[in-house]
């Protein structure tokens, strides 16, 4: 069964979602970015540069691994893992960082600004800036700097300047605010290298396209091996970039079910979660109309999750659209369930997942159990857990790491 899917529309909307809700100062920049991207996309030279770096520098393609032990444990559908954890810098974030940095160079911009929560996107951006000799400045919430000290050091080692953000809740959402303010003031020579499928058009489209290498490879690898498509794909959702990268090449294959997994934190019945699609309502933040955690007066609420990479009160506009259209389904996994899956995957498969990815694994185990033994599902293992072992150790020993 095939359907047509051509979003975003010309004005950058996915149904009611998306758009360009930015101060006028940035309109010229986002319009220039859009035309530069459309040209680059059609330019074989640019595509070759991008593909070459993905292959030689990032180490693509990444394996599609059949997790036999995990499959036995779950007792249902076959579970495959798309190993984005094996990428250079340890997560999918580098796919997008490389694409956008090449775009910045093409646009003649030698300075790059980025936001980061866990530090994964910051590290990926700093890495690519080192490679391409770009000046790099990363905004990071004061709270996250404390939680992810090692990643701060990594970024500095790579030559980036990390700026502590103390405004608001001093986490990812405030780092985005500060990066946007910086971009407003330095828009002439600076590219904003946004880390997920959020922000004003064309960012959600650009990030999706650069990340869709995940789903494209998965689709080909799975077809090559099984001569059919998987029945379901599963990915965790922070802003939604690894999920969009996995989903997009499958959107037209209507028989493939798409599952996004949000962070339920301490539980979606408590105020301490990051389940924007499950518990939020549509609103406007950081340039886009999307599902948002907000109070009754439209003030944005803080998100909470054991994984800093899912700790964001919004979710990309395309996911907002896919939810309302019913094409994708969204569920949530608590801190505790993610921690259990983190340990389980380590013990069963010898793979320590990022805490973000552990959310997808936890949900996949439940889903597999409900599916038929002959069916197949693929989990996007978005990153490796090296960055999290310290926090998990503290937590398992009874300490409190997050709040």
């Amino acid at each position: 069964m095939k359907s047509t899917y051509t979003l975003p529309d010309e004005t950058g909307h996915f149904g009611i979602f998306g758009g360009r809700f930015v101060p006028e100062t940035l309109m010229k920049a986002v319009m220039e970015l859009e035309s530069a991207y459309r040209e680059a996309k059609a330019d074989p030279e640019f595509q070759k540069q991008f593909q070459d770096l993905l292959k030689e520098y990032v180490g693509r393609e990444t394996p599609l691994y059949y997790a036999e032990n995990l499959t036995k444990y779950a007792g249902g559908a076959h579970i495959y893992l798309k190993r984005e954890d094996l990428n250079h810098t340890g997560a999918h974030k580098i796919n997008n960082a490389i694409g956008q940095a090449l775009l910045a160079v093409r646009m003649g911009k030698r300075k790059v600004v980025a936001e980061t929560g866990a530090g994964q996107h910051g590290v990926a951006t700093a890495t690519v800036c080192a490679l391409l000799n770009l000046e790099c400045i990363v905004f990071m919430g004061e709270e996250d700097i404390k939680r992810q000290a090692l990643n701060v050091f990594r970024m500095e080692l790579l030559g980036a300047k990390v700026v502590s953000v103390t405004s608001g809740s001093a986490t990812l959402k405030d780092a985005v605010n500060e990066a946007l303010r910086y971009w407003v003031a330095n828009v002439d020579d600076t590219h904003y290298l946004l880390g997920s499928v959020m922000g004003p058009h064309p960012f959600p489209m650009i990030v999706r396209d650069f990340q869709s290498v995940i789903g494209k490879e998965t689709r080909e690898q799975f077809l090559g091996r099984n001569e059919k498509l998987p029945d379901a794909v599963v990915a965790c959702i922070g802003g939604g970039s690894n999920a969009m990268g996995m989903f997009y090449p499958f959107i037209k294959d209507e028989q493939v079910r798409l599952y996004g997994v949000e962070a339920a934190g301490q539980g979606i019945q408590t105020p301490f979660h990051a389940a924007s699609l499950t518990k939020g309502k549509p609103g406007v933040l950081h340039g886009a109309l999307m599902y948002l955690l907000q109070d009754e007066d439209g003030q944005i609420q803080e998100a909470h999750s054991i994984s800093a990479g899912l700790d964001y009160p919004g979710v990309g506009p395309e996911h907002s659209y896919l939810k309302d259209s019913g094409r994708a389904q969204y569920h949530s996994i608590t801190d505790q369930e993610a921690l259990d899956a983190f340990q389980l995957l380590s013990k069963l498969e010898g793979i320590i997942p990022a805490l973000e990815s552990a959310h997808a694994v936890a949900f996949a185990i439940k889903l597999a159990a409900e599916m038929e033994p002959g069916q197949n599902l693929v989990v996007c293992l978005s990153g490796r857990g090296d960055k999290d072992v310290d926090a998990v150790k503290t937590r398992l020993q009874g300490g409190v790491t997050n709040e």
Partner: protein
Amino acid sequence: MNRITQAFRRLTETNGKAFIPYIMAGDGGLSCLVERLQLLERLDATAVEVGVPFSDPVADGPTIQQAGIRALKDGTSLNDILVELTKAKANLHIPIILMTYLNPIYSYGINRFVEAAQTAGIDGCIIPDLPIEEEEIIAPQLAEAGIELIRLVTPTTPIKRVEEISNRGNGFLYTVTVKGITGARGEFDGGLSTFLSSVKQVSPIPVVAGFGISNNEQIAEMTKYCDGVVVGSKIVDLLSKNRLEELEDFMSAYKKSSANI
């Protein structure tokens, strides 16, 4: 006729320039909002921009961010502000322009907001995260209610676009003087006078400069090229420190110099 347009008509007749202070509603408690509006009316402000506090004000610098945080801590909501303005409507004659990010209005409900704003006697709206590409979401309803949508242009706006934007509105064209966020500045870019002049040349509506303006020298310089100024962070700062005499001196000095232009 909308009170903003009337105010600019009067200025034209007297060769005066507009002075539009910005205040943050709820900073210092919502109970002093009307008092402050009346003070500014007495000091002969042309209109007042009333800021609605928002958790994530991306276009604002530290002074207005902090004022917003104080207002939110005090529990100020859009609804409270509208209620307060509605109550005081009969005692306020100065044009009121609500400055709010889109989400508080979106969450309130666009139609419900426009109706309540009309009831509250609001004359105009500035929505800094709503470029013309997205304004269909609220512009028709505002126009229907006789509330001016005040649009912004900036030094990065190409002149053809300035022309397009200025042709959409009636009240005035808010001309952002810097590439950057709000907040007092010591100096402005050398090209500012050229920029203001070129905006003035294409705009069929009054051109008002704003962002970063904090003293009378700057105002005198800018109003050579445009029809008035918005002063934000400076006013917010003086009010929050309760330096009312300084505020009066600032505004009366301006009035004197404006009368002499």
